[in-house]
């Protein structure tokens, strides 16, 4: 299964699920609690702060049994968790924007050490210009560092995906850290109806914790972790290649594992989410627009209206951005004659959105010319409305008959 739709028939829903109303940051915290980490490390930053506040309160209230480390900065937050993971702990944190930037040094290392740490990125635009509002620039900037990165569309998906992320990260064929990306402002503070899974059922889903079988700092199993590796002599080159190839293999394996875990989730809890790529009304479409994250809700409304108005347009949503789901996306793009890609961040090198840039690579592999163009919107907290998406649809439709523009379209330029 490489694609799914919301119309996928649900299994019999477990009876015990409680329904609550909460914001995305609280949903993430509740998901973390259900996954039972041993250790969380926190440092506040807008718009992530209420997430770690919720985690701290859950622990203070005895609703979550984890060691909480109020570290002095994001750099130490991730470093504490690396130590915890190497000693066998299931670990969690959350950050965004400048915090993620400050964390970069240990961030790069987490994937290299194959530590299955789960970290929410409550996405925030990059500074400068100074800004505290949502945007994907932070997560996009670190997309090439060997973390699995998944983007959520709804508050319910935030909760469910946060739990699934631990299982994906800790799968023995993956053993990589996972970012659960939830849009700052729109998902972090957006309040929705959420079904809360039962703890015992989540426990059964999670299985036995085994996070440091492959690398550990344990006097019972003494080993040197991360000795100097590489250089041009001896077994250096081949040893380094072995590490890097293993990381790449773990990334590729994660595509399969993400699908399997989503499938199991659907069977156990009756909620189905497209694991890699979601198609929405793509059948019978001549062209498509592509989205990522919470903007997809408005995009789907626009697609419905356009379809009702007779336009032959569908939608492709990316959930798993890293590793990029090339095969799954090829299948979806294979159905259309043109595509418009909407990014919530900027790719400075190509003067387009980062997801558009990745998509161009997939289109090349498709071996067929598919006209495409880049849209950039929703920067620094700006809204991407149904109206914006109608402009996206109209512009993409023109690709069927006119040359594609090279310049991106900046959706909020005149807002």
């Amino acid at each position, binding site marked *: 299964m490489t694609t799914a739709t919301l119309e996928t028939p649900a299994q019999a829903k477990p009876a015990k699920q409680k329904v609550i109303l909460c914001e995305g940051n609280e949903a993430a915290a509740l998901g973390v609690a259900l996954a039972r980490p041993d250790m969380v490390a926190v440092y506040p930053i807008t718009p992530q702060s209420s997430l770690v506040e919720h985690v701290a309160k859950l622990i203070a209230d005895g609703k979550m049994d984890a060691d909480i480390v109020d570290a002095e900065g994001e750099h130490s937050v991730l470093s504490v*968790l690396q130590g915890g993971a190497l000693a066998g702990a299931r670990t969690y944190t959350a950050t965004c924007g400048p915090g993620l930037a400050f964390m970069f040094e240990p961030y790069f290392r987490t994937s290299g050490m194959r530590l299955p740490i789960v970290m929410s990125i409550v996405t925030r635009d990059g500074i400068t210009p100074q800004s505290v509002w949502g945007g994907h620039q932070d997560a996009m900037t670190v997309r090439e560092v060997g973390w699995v990165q998944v983007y959520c569309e709804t508050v319910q998906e935030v909760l469910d995906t946060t739990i699934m992320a631990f299982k994906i990260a800790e799968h023995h064929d993956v053993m990589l850290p996972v970012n659960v990306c939830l849009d700052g402002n729109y998902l972090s503070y957006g309040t929705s109806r959420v079904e809360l899974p039962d703890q015992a059922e989540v426990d059964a889903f999670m299985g036995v914790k085994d996070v440091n079988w492959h690398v550990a700092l344990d006097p019972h199993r003494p080993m040197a972790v*991360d000795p*100097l590796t590489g250089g041009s002599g001896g077994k250096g080159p081949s040893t380094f290649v072995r590490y890097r190839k293993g990381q790449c293999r773990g990334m590729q394996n994660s595509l399969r594992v993400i699908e399997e875990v989503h499938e199991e989730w659907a069977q156990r809890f009756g909620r189905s989410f497209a694991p890699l790529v979601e198609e929405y009304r793509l059948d019978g479409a001549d062209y498509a627009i592509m989205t990522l994250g919470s903007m997809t809700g408005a995009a789907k409304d626009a697609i419905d209206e356009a379809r009702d108005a007779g336009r032959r347009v569908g939608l492709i949503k990316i959930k798993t951005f890293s590793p990029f789901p090339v095969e799954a996306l090829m299948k979806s793009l294979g159905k259309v004659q043109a595509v418009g890609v909407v990014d919530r961040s900027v790719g400075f090198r190509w003067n387009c959105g980062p997801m558009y840039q990745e998509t161009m690579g997939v289109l090349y592999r498709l071996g067929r010319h598919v006209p495409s163009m880049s849209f950039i919107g929703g920067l620094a907290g700006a809204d991407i409305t149904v109206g914006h998406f109608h402009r996206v649809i109209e512009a993409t439709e023109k690709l069927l008959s006119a040359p594609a523009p090279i310049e991106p379209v900046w959706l909020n330029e005149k807002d």
Partner: protein
Amino acid sequence: MGKSYNTIAFDANKCDGCGDCMTACATAKVGVGDTARSRIQIVGSADDGFELALCRQCGDPKCVMVCPAGALTKNFDTGVIEWNDAKCVDCLLCTVGCSYAGIALDAGSGHVAKCDTCDGAPACVPACPHDALTYVTTSRIYNEVGDWEDLFAPGLAGCQGCNTELLMRHTLRRVGPETVLATPPGCVPGMGSVGFNGSTGTKVPVFHPLLTNTAAMLAGIKRQYKRVGREVNALAIAGDGGASDVGFQSLSGAAERNEQILFMVVDNEGYMNTGMQRSSCTPYGAWTSTTPIGKGSGGMPSQGKTQDAKNLPLIMVNHRCEYVATASTAYMEDLYDKLDKAIQASKRGFAYLHVYSPCTTGWRFPTDQNMEVARKAVETNFVMLWEYNRTDGLRFTRPVDDPLPVTEYLRAMGRFRHLSPDQISHIQSKVVENLAFVQQMAHRQSA
């Protein structure tokens, strides 16, 4: 592993040649105060002082080797070289074999006689009115910990003359095998403790933290073992650069949270492993590869580092850690004492040990001078040895009442060779100022 023993030590500076020790010896051994028959002999030296002629109870005794009759033997329980009169043939070869005039003909008996330490209570020692003689246990550390397992592999690749390897081996064998060791980038992993391409130099779990996050990673490790009820020591052996500069934030954070870590800084006053660059622990005036000597411009010559060193251990005192101490490899008993206290303190909270460690390569001195340089640093008060805990405050463990001028320290090294008289007087005044500051803390806290 062998053993070493107590010995009668002689301080020539305190001896006035009164001969009381000889009288006491002769009285104890032959019943009369005839100094000619004493087994300890004080003799005039070439520089108008006094020297000691006494059996050293050698570990490799020449007298035993040359004796043709088997009359001399080393007792490996007491360390004393014993003479057996029943076997002795009075050939006196032993008196020629000894370099210390420690065995000689006793005319009163007609046989050789030598010191037997009076069975561990030598009569000469209490007889000295000037404390020039002491019966000392210089080898306590060797005897007590020498048989403990060395938890580093043989053949670490430090520079010739470096004492950091010595420090590492002593530290880890003392802390023991139930330890996770962090060695952030620097000399400690540079000499192969973590290893290269799959081989390691350490027998306990060991890792390279980043230069920046040693204390944070150790905190995570320690907390998880606490959570699952396992007693595991979290030990860092870090350099001064990673601790005082780029890693200071995580160090300070971990200290503030009172994480149960033993954090040892090996202070060689710069980034020596990367090529001897300046750190914030580099002292004023020192040459480093990023504070080089040159004629400068505008008549302002470049004369080494222009700022004073950051005093990291005092900063750690201000975190109110469980334990903070400074130490030196020239004073191993003091270091061991502090190591023991730091290990215990790290079971309750953050323990910080700052060890001054001269760098043969980077400080520019001969490879056989490391201990001498370390000792001179203390004797001039350039470095002060003290310890702190929250209950007792700060106290000097080895106060230097009559310090040598700082030039005695500075001239031992090439890195200070260029100093101008003004720079030297700046350093001397800083030594006085720093001493007064720490003394004030010690007095205030003991009051």
